[in-house]
């Protein structure tokens, strides 16, 4: 079995897959004649970034709300990069990377949030 340079059809790739139950891992491919998605993605990423910047510089909201808003913008930006540029839903057979990714985002969030919570020493005889 040499490294074939030929392109496989998806159905052939599917033939090797045997976990039909995991429908949500089914890959999605997306082809275009012109890289419109990429360009829109780029513009979107710039907008998200500068929006966050101007919100902070002009201090439009109280601190906590502001932090929440810019973090939301950052999350949106991350999702955009993953979806547009990283083709996160693509794969051969099944897009297995999705499961570790969902998990790791959960764990990362828990890690940062809980660490802050733990290290606040929010207690005492109060």
């Amino acid at each position: 079995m040499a490294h074939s340079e030929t392109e496989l059809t998806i159905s052939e790739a599917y033939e090797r897959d045997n976990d039909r139950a995991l429908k949500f891992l089914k890959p999605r491919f997306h082809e275009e004649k012109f890289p419109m998605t990429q360009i829109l993605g780029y513009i979107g990423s710039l907008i998200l970034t500068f929006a966050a910047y101007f919100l902070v510089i002009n201090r439009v909201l109280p601190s906590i709300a502001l932090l929440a808003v810019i973090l939301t913008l950052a999350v949106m930006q991350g999702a955009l990069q993953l979806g547009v540029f990283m083709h996160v839903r693509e794969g051969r057979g099944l897009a297995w990377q999705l499961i570790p990714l969902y998990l790791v985002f959960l764990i990362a969030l828990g890690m940062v949030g809980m660490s802050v919570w733990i290290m606040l020493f929010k207690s005492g005889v109060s």
Partner: protein
Amino acid sequence: MSFKGLRKPYRSLALAAVAAGVVSTGCGQQYVVLHPVGPVGEQELHLMILAAIAMAVVIVAVFTLYFYAVARFRDKPGNAAPYRPEWHGHKLLETLWWIIPVVLLTVIAIPTVQVTYALDRLPKGKNPVVIDVTSLTWKWLFEYPGQHIATVNYLEIPTGKPVLFELTANSPMNTLWIPQLGGMEYTMPNRVLPLWLQADKPGMYWGDSGQYSGTGFEKMFFKVKAVSPKAFAVWASKTHATATPLTLASYHQLLKHDTMGQALYGSYPKDTFPSIASGFTLNGQGMYMTMHGPHGSIKYLPMSATQK
């Protein structure tokens, strides 16, 4: 290999363990954790016993099933027990062993929550004796801000009164542990953590550090003498009057990496304990003050600061 062969070591082991426990101690008083002399240790003990009983239930249940299965389903010629190689599930049973542990754990969990919160508060209406504890390599410095005295590796406390330890370290981390009074708490540099304990019976107890902190660590045992409040006041004022003061120079002597015996000091320099540290808020019953410092950090003024 037979059932008896498997079970015997257990039986003899259990016997050996019990025998060892009885023979070795003479007086079980040496099981310090099981003989608390104050409310903190008592509450902790009650929880332990509760948990131990729940766990005993688990262990008995599992062992019964286990020994029965091992005894009955041996692969020996002529075993009449049913052989069902394809039996691979049973809805009811499987649900059962999700549910039973949940019930048992709830039984432990509820008092766990209650006691955890309860121990985080000083009992109402009782003025505690405050002791500022600094762990050093490898010794304990105890400062009594209310009595203006200090000791090394020796504690004297009044009975029937909560004692509030304010813990910090000028060394690697340690924990302050006086098993008969109750559980331990870490001492950490740059932090002040609270711990309250109480002795209800006068007597001689011992304390120790639970957290390894270097080669002299095993020398951090200290004696704890609980006496009546009156006797305590007498001891404090006598010490204040007669013992040599702890000077800054002698404090720096203490910072050396070394071990030492007990010592008493008639007074001590104020700056040897962080009067303000970020971290804990101990403002129950208005006895403790918190302030918000720069950068939103919490400044904590221990009671000693307000008393002066």
